[in-house]
């Protein structure tokens, strides 16, 4: 007789715990469970908000911290179970060197990579988008191409100007080297007047980005998956041939 109430208590406690976790889930996602998927050979890297570099941004900013992403990219390269990588971009840009570091990492990964620009892939998002083996842009997405800017206190103006100018050349060289856009065209877009109100640069819409050769194609998730699986297939065939030889 004595045991029963304690059992009930346990059950009650268990129920309460279940209920509270259920309530938590409903509060977080508005639903009680999430669908389970089988193991994936394709990993996803999302670059969202601002690309955070040497300076930590205020806590309310949504940022992508490059020091978090670099080890993940190494893990993708090392893990034999991972066969491909999709890079999702919806970024306003950010730190140039952090963005270039990410771009160089993605470009040097030996596994097939596909990027999708959703919403926006502005400023330093441009080199990140083109760093993948194949790039897609959603029809409604845009990419702002503009000269590099610096705010804050500048000590040694001429030197800083030289430095920024060279940094801009690094961005231009990377984009031209990893996409089909002509260098002169990219510079023209970067320094164009009258496109952005009271500013120089161009806001390139999805279709235009493809037309200029900046991005490889218009598309979304399904296009990216088809392309990536195709590239993984080619990759696997290549390794099989090597084994036979």
């Amino acid at each position, binding site marked *: 007789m004595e045991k029963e109430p304690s059992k009930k208590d346990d059950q009650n406690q268990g129920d309460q715990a279940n209920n509270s976790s259920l309530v*938590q*889930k409903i*509060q*977080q*996602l508005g639903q009680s*469970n*999430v*669908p*389970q*998927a089988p*193991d*994936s050979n*394709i*990993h*996803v*890297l999302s670059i969202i908000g601002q690309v955070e570099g040497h300076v*930590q*941004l*205020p*806590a*309310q*900013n949504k940022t992508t911290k490059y020091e*978090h992403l670099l080890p*993940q990219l190494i*893990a*993708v390269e090392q893990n034999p179970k*991972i066969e491909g*990588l999709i890079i999702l971009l919806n970024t306003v840009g950010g730190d140039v060197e952090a963005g270039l570091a990410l771009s160089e990492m993605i470009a040097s990964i030996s596994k097939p990579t596909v990027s999708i620009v959703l919403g926006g892939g502005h400023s330093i998002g441009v080199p990140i988008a083109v760093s993948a083996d194949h790039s897609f842009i959603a029809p409604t997405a845009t990419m702002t191409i503009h000269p590099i800017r610096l*705010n804050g206190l500048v000590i040694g103006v001429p030197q800083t100007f030289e430095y920024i100018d060279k940094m801009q050349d690094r961005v231009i060289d990377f984009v031209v080297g990893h996409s089909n856009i002509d260098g002169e065209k990219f510079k023209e877009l970067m320094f164009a007047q009258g496109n952005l109100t009271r500013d120089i640069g161009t806001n390139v819409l999805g279709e235009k980005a493809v037309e200029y050769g900046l991005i490889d194609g218009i598309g979304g998730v399904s296009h990216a998956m088809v392309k990536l699986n195709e590239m993984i297939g080619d990759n696997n065939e290549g390794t099989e041939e090597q084994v036979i030889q």
Partner: protein
Amino acid sequence: MLYTPLSTTDIVPSADADFQKRQCVMHNGKQLYVEEMEDGQLQVLQLLSTDPNDFMNSDYLPGTILR
């Protein structure tokens, strides 16, 4: 009243206290960006992973309380 193209955060920087509450922790082999709440519990802000299945795992949903 401010009339400026700058964002409010550029003019009025947030307190350092906001940052001190946030940290990166390893939990069951997964890297999580968490915020310490007032009662000392850790709440998940962001899951740092490239595995899409990790995002399906309800233990790592943003807002989940770790301990």
